[in-house]
């Protein structure tokens, strides 16, 4: 009952009355008593169901003390301070409020329902409603008296204050009364209360109706105002005020005309309730804006209502906007867009909530599932993976694969048979391809195996070191690659130790390791790869250096003991070298012969050269025999075709060097026989060996190195045949049978060589490519003359040993060659080329006792 400002308790003494009446007991009214005159049943008591809820029972705060505020406003109390919206102490105002409420009740002025806008900052807090009401109070009266109106910003969202004002039905100026006066009045009024309560209730209802009407009017007004504003597009508050001020009277008239006629009270109620709710919401201005007007409420004539509702909401929004700091309402934003924005915001919030809920549920699920994660760390997993991979990796994946083995063997047989069928004699590079591939595969396998074994050994070392846990990492963590001298090798090359190879010659023979294609000719693989060969040579060089060192340290002959040890070590070294040369050995049959392979590199040839005084004659002879026997395997023989090339190229030059080194180092120095072994017999045997295989001999003799070798033997032999000169000057003749043998041999060789002479000349071979007797041929021949030299020389030496008959046959054979050369010499101008040509020919002719000059003079122009 204090809602209406009534003193709800029985009047007490003055001192008690000073208290806030909120603490006093609510008076007990015996409405339902027997003494009651049952007039209550005649009351139109509806809508009171929620009274308790609405009004509450307990102590009543000042929150909704609109009457108090109005009272204060009425009396223009100093508590009305425009600059301070927050009035904490409202107690002193209550008396004034209550005193004025009576006046309020007495005076109902619909016109005072005009709610002037108030600075909306105050509406932010329900606590401040009172102050707002107070604030509006002056404006309430200002409406009546426009001159009093201090400010009139047209924010009509201050409906709460309006409501308060309306609920109080406005009031004219009334003096605030003290509590005592009120009590006195109450005393008087109490007597009549029971009779008057009915009336008061009726009045209440009337008030409510009027209130609703006024509210509706207010809404209409708001709407019109809204329309006006939108029409006029006014931004300035004062302008709007000025405009509206004079319109108030007009509007009042309009309202009063329209207010009652529009709708009946029954319609007002639901619509009002709809509007009240926005207004209640307004009391909580920061609460949700979105409370759409209730379309169902807008029947028929409710279009206006709907519009009003919308306007209400719109104003509320604006109010909130302003509360949030906007200086003015933005009337440019249309209602529709704002609605859309509100709806959008609402939707987004809902979505956000849903997403959050979903997210939380998901995280909970994951967490429950992942409770036992990370028992195994990533390094544990890597460790296991490594172990498993190491188990999978094997050096030879086909080792235990039966079908792969069978397939490989079948393929091997097929290829081997193909090679034999297609490439009968030469058999060069038959197994080059598959060998290379297999080698590559094997090398990769070895690489992987090395990695795996390295990892395993590391694991084992970690195992071993883990036995003493106390001393682990005592010196800090030393593991890790950074401490190693070299960075991690991207590719690990196999370090094939030649020692192992030397000790496993049989294995070498079986394993296919060499990639050197040019060594492969025939079916059998080479005994060792070129690299291995070089390694062997290196070791032999070490031996020879040791020997030479030993020789320098040769002890005195008197020192028997040391001499014997010295001798012993020397012999050992020599034996090592001899074994290392592999002139004889189990790999005798390989292609090439291991010794031949050894002297293929330049270094090998040079090495042999150093062996001149270390090998025994027997060994040397054996070596020579091997060379001759396997002469076609010699690199200088096999590759001699390059000497036929006119073009100068690095390969050719290299070959020249090799050939020279062969003759010089190997034959002349290394295998230089001591005088005792240098017998006619020896050379005869050697030459015999050379011509043993005629086809081979033919091929060999065409090559320069081969011919040079033959020439060497031949020269030695012929020298010996003619007899040496002894130290005292006597003639040491060769044994007779040897000479005879030699003659036989010579004849045989002669016969063999006769058809070969012409092609023996490199120039012949080379110039065959050019048209004969052409200018180009002549030019090329200038170069090839140098090539021919050795042939002319040998020819000369050979011819010397021949008989006349053989001479004539030689001449016949070589006639064309000689003449051709001379002809070309004639064509040339005087110079070195010409002279060389003539010189070459003279070598031969002089051996026969002829001379080129004879021919040249005889035939000035040698016919073609």
């Amino acid at each position: 009952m204090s809602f209406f400002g009534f003193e709800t308790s029985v009047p007490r003494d003055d001192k008690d009355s000073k208290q806030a009446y909120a603490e006093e007991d609510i008076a007990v009214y015996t409405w339902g008593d027997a003494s009651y005159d049952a007039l209550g049943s005649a009351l139109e008591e509806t809508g009171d169901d929620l009274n308790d809820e609405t009004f509450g029972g307990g102590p009543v705060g000042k929150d909704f003390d609109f009457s108090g505020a109005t009272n204060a406003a009425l009396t223009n109390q100093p508590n009305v301070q425009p600059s301070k919206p927050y009035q904490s102490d409202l107690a002193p105002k209550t008396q004034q409020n209550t005193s004025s409420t009576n006046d309020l009740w007495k005076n109902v002025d619909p016109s005072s329902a005009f709610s002037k806008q108030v600075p909306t900052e105050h509406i932010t807090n329900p606590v401040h409603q009172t102050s707002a009401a107070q604030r509006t109070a002056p404006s309430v009266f200002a409406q009546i008296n426009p001159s009093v109106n201090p400010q009139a910003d047209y924010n009509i969202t201050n409906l709460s204050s309006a409501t308060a004002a309306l609920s109080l039905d406005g009031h004219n100026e009334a003096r605030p009364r003290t509590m005592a006066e009120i009590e006195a009045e109450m005393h008087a009024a109490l007597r009549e209360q029971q009779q008057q309560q009915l009336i008061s209730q009726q009045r209440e209802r009337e008030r409510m109706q009027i209130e609703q009407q006024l509210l509706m009017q207010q809404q209409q007004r708001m709407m019109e105002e809204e329309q006006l504003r939108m029409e006029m597009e006014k931004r300035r508050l004062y302008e709007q005020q000025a405009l509206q001020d004079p319109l108030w009277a007009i509007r009042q008239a309009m309202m009063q005309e329209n207010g009652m006629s529009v709708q009946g009270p029954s319609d007002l109620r639901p619509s009002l309730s709809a509007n009240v709710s926005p207004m209640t919401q307004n009391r909580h201005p920061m609460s949700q804006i979105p409370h759409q007007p209730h379309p169902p409420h807008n029947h028929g004539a409710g279009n206006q209502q709907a519009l009003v509702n919308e306007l209400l909401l719109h104003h509320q929004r604006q109010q909130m906007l302003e509360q949030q700091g906007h200086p003015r309402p933005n009337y440019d934003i249309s209602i529709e867009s704002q609605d859309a924005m509100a709806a959008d915001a609402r939707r987004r919030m809902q979505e956000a909530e849903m997403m959050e809920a979903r997210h939380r549920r998901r995280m909970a699920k994951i967490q429950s599932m992942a409770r036992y994660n990370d028992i195994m760390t990533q390094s544990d997993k890597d460790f296991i993976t490594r172990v498993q991979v190491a188990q999978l990796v094997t050096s030879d994946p086909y080792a235990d694969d039966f079908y792969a083995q069978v397939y490989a063997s079948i393929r091997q047989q097929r290829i081997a048979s193909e090679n034999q069928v297609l490439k009968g004699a030469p058999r060069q590079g038959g197994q080059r391809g598959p060998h290379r591939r297999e080698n590559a595969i094997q090398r990769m396998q070895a690489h992987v195996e090395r990695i795996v074994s390295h990892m395993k050994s590391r694991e084992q070392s970690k195992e071993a070191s883990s036995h003493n846990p106390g001393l682990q990492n005592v010196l800090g963590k030393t593991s890790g690659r950074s401490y190693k001298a070299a960075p991690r090798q991207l590719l690990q090359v196999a370090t094939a130790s030649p020692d192992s190879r030397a000790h496993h010659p049989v294995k070498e023979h079986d394993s296919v390791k060499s990639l050197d294609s040019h060594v492969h000719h025939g079916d059998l693989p080479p005994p060792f790869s070129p690299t291995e060969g070089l390694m062997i040579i290196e070791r032999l060089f070490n031996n020879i250096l040791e020997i030479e060192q030993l020789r320098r340290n040769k002890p005195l002959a008197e020192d028997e003991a040391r001499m014997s040890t010295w001798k012993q070590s020397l012999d050992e070294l020599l034996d090592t070298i001899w074994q290392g040369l592999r002139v004889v050995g189990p790999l005798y049959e390989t292609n090439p012969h291991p010794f031949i392979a050894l002297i293929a590199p330049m270094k090998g040839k040079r090495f042999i050269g150093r062996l001149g005084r270390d090998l025994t004659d027997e060994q040397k002879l054996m070596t020579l025999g091997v060379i001759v026997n396997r002469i076609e395997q010699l690199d200088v023989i096999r590759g001699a075709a390059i000497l036929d090339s006119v073009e100068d190229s690095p390969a050719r030059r290299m070959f020249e060097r090799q050939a020279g080194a062969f003759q010089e180092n190997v034959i002349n120095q290394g295998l230089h026989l001591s005088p005792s072994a240098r017998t006619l017999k020896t050379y005869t045997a050697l030459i015999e060996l050379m011509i043993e295989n005629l086809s081979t001999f033919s091929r060999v003799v065409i090559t320069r190195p081969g011919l040079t070798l033959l020439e060497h033997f031949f020269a030695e032999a012929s020298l010996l045949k003619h007899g040496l000169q002894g130290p005292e000057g006597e003639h040491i003749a060769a044994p007779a049978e040897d000479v005879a043998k030699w003659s036989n041999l010579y004849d045989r060789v002669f016969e063999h060589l006769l058809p070969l002479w012409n092609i023996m000349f490199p120039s012949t071979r080379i110039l065959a490519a050019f048209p004969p007797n052409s200018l180009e041929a002549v030019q090329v021949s200038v170069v090839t003359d140098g090539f021919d030299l050795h042939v002319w020389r040998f020819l000369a030496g050979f011819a010397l040993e021949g008989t006349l008959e053989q001479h004539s046959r030689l001449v016949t054979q070589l006639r064309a060659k000689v003449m051709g050369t001379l002809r070309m010499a004639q064509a040339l101008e005087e110079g070195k080329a010409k002279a060389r040509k003539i010189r070459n020919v003279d070598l031969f002719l002089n051996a026969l006792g002829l001379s080129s000059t004879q021919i040249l003079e005889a035939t000035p122009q040698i016919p073609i």
Partner: protein
Amino acid sequence: MLPSSLLKAAQGKPMMVELKNGESFNGHLIDCDAFMNITLREVYQTAADSDRFWKLKEVYIRGSTIKYLQVQPALLDAVKEEQQKAREANRGSSGGQRGGRGGGRGGGPARGGRVMTRGNRGRGRG
């Protein structure tokens, strides 16, 4: 921790073993070895079709036939705890060292000593 360490830690605990042929064994683990051969006691064996059951006092299962073993969550909790503790201890003792050491090899209870460090060594560089 490694699976073998976990198995060692589960000695004496009840577990379920499923074999590659579908049979399952529920029992307490007596012992295990590096090949995951295990012996169980008080075993309930279930056929692959889940239609027949046997109760056996002791059972020896060859490791190569095992599909998986299932242990109790309590054991996992205990293991996790130990790992944490070991990690703390590791972090405390080897504060200056870089993270590569990867603490938390703890796993496995008392017998862990050698097992853990072996793991440590093996993964020292992480």
